[in-house]
């Protein structure tokens, strides 16, 4: 099987805007996201809060709010039957136009372009819950408080199997996830960890081609985090088989140790841009993007008081809503020079498993 056919999801130069009611402006939330998710592998999407990780997942699922939402780039998703669902060719100038001051966006009603976007979202609607499943942030609040655990997992199975519930696989999942004693309970009667297991059960009941886990360990105590990591490791060992259509997983998190342990590939996002794509085992050995280096340093520092010194300016976000010349990370980069301020860096292949967007890739 070729490398391309092993790719289940391919995101190329994705660009998305959202409307901000209070300021009456359009914010560019994703500027340039490019990465692939391969079958039978876990791809980790890391970055600080507000870097556009969750919105990238929403774009893939076709649930980004329509104001105006995705305006550029390409998303290609390969179904289990080998067919492709693709969003492509919507360029900025056809669907919307950025004003000269870079603050606002004028939407042109280009019907053909809009229709293509709706068609993609319409197609993704049919794939959601079948081919792509998501484990949302905050498991407890993401479960319907009026539905029992069993009902929710059965619903997941029904969506995944076109209205028919696969009772054998549901029972197997209930046993595997140890949800038997909680089958008739409501979400407010469950602990956070059990709710998370229910979310996993709902997602796996549909046996999806791509599983997206959105910050699964955020706001969860360390012992439970360990359990969740164990669950994912178990899932990883089950998907790593070399069958023709083994499922894949996109793990969205801002915890470097988690992706280091679980992911095969790591995609680093900053300010709506993907700045680095690297195979997990090469991340520590190879030279990496200055932003990734900061993330790694911040994960290593145990004393929180020293963290600010170690990580420098991380967390002070760049205003990505405006158009700007040069590298997105120029304001916080220790290696910044004139080229960084004027030219947008292009993708450079450092090795077969390491791609980076930095002018100083040779100095790293």
């Amino acid at each position, binding site marked *: 099987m070729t490398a391309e056919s092993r790719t289940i999801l391919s995101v190329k130069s994705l660009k998305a805007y959202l409307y901000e009611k209070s300021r009456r402006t359009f914010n560019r939330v994703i500027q340039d996201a490019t990465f692939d998710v391969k079958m039978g592998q876990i791809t980790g999407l890391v970055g600080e809060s507000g870097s556009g990780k969750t919105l990238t997942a929403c774009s893939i699922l076709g649930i980004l709010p329509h104001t105006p939402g995705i305006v550029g780039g390409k998303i290609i998703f390969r179904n289990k039957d080998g067919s492709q669902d693709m969003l492509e060719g919507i360029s900025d100038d056809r669907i919307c136009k950025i004003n000269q001051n870079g603050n606002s966006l004028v939407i042109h*009603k280009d019907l053909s372009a809009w229709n293509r976007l709706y068609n993609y979202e319409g197609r993704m609607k049919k794939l959601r*819950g079948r081919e792509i*499943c998501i484990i949302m942030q905050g498991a407890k*609040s993401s479960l*319907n408080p009026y539905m029992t655990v069993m009902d929710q997992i059965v619903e997941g199975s029904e969506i995944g199997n076109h209205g028919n519930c696969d009772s054998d696989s549901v029972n197997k999942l209930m046993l595997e996830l140890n949800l038997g004693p909680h089958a008739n309970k*409501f979400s*407010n009667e469950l602990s956070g960890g059990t709710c998370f297991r229910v979310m996993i059960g*709902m997602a796996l009941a549909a046996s999806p081609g791509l599983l997206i886990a959105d910050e699964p360990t955020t706001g969860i105590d360390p012992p439970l985090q360990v359990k969740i990591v164990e669950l994912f490791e178990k899932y990883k060992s089950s998907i790593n088989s070399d069958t023709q259509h083994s499922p894949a997983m996109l793990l969205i998190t801002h915890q470097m140790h988690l992706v280091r342990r679980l992911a095969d590939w790591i995609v680093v996002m900053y300010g709506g841009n993907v700045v680095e794509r690297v195979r997990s085992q090469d991340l520590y050995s190879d030279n990496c993007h200055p932003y990734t280096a900061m993330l790694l340093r911040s994960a290593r520092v145990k004393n929180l008081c020293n963290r600010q010194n170690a990580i420098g300016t991380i967390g002070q976000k760049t205003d990505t809503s405006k158009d700007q010349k040069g590298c997105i990370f120029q304001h916080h980069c220790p290696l910044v020079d004139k080229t960084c301020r004027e030219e947008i860096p292009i993708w450079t292949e450092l090795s077969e498993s390491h791609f980076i967007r930095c002018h100083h890739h040779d100095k790293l």
Partner: protein
Amino acid sequence: MQIFEEVQSKTINIVEADTKQFHLANPIQAKLSYWQSLTIVAWFLLAALIPYAPKVNYQLKNSPPFESSLLGRDGSGRDVLVHGVMAVRLYILPIVIMLGVAFGIGLILAMLGAELRPIRILWFDAWKASAGIISVILDILEALPGIVIVLILVTNLEHPNLNWVAMILGVIGSAKVARELILKIRVLKSSDFIDGAIASGVSWWQIVFKHILYRNSFTVLVNQAINLIILLILLEISFTYIADTVWSPCILYPPDFPSWGKMIFEGSANLSTWWIVAWPMFLLFLLLNSFRYIGNTVIRIREEAK
């Protein structure tokens, strides 16, 4: 911080209490609701299917309970027990019409008013405009003098009947249903579990009817239904009174037809014959009380079937 925690714990308690309405933990209450619901359904079916010819016997008129019959007889000598039980047939069709109109119109208005859109349209402000228009329509509907309109209609129609009254009550009642649903939907549609359902691939119709209306707005709908039924029966009683005393065109059904309104009116005129009013009042209470339980029973039967 302490206040925040208190508010949070109260909210959790409310959610838990609300959830337990559906999941009747008390076995006695669950069993009672089960049998009560079955009785009501059987009662409606029997009253609708069995033919009823009132036996008038003036020799036995106003005879007290346990004398010539179990619950006594009314002013025309008819058996109060049978008359009261069969009276429900008068209300079956009007209740169906009224609730159908009220919930049908109310649901459409609520979905437009709460910006719960089934289809995507190009210009996103169009739904905002629809919410504004719906708000004005609801204001107008709520300001309509319902009883006056019913009176005008009844007096001007050649053959007035309770179905027309029910239809007008349904149209006016739809505003209240829509208001309550808009409030509920607005809160729910921004909740995490609805976002989760959308992301999990649940269809739009399932989200509206299963996740929002059936699971989360059931109490609101039942309350509105009970209010409307009470209003219908009160209007029926009022029209019986008007027709018998001052204005004969207000007769909404044939004079021999069994009706709680007629019984309550007749019984309350002279409380020495209290049995005529007590039995329909009890049946009315039983009917309204059961409406709350029918929903619970349906869910319970579904769960047991699983």
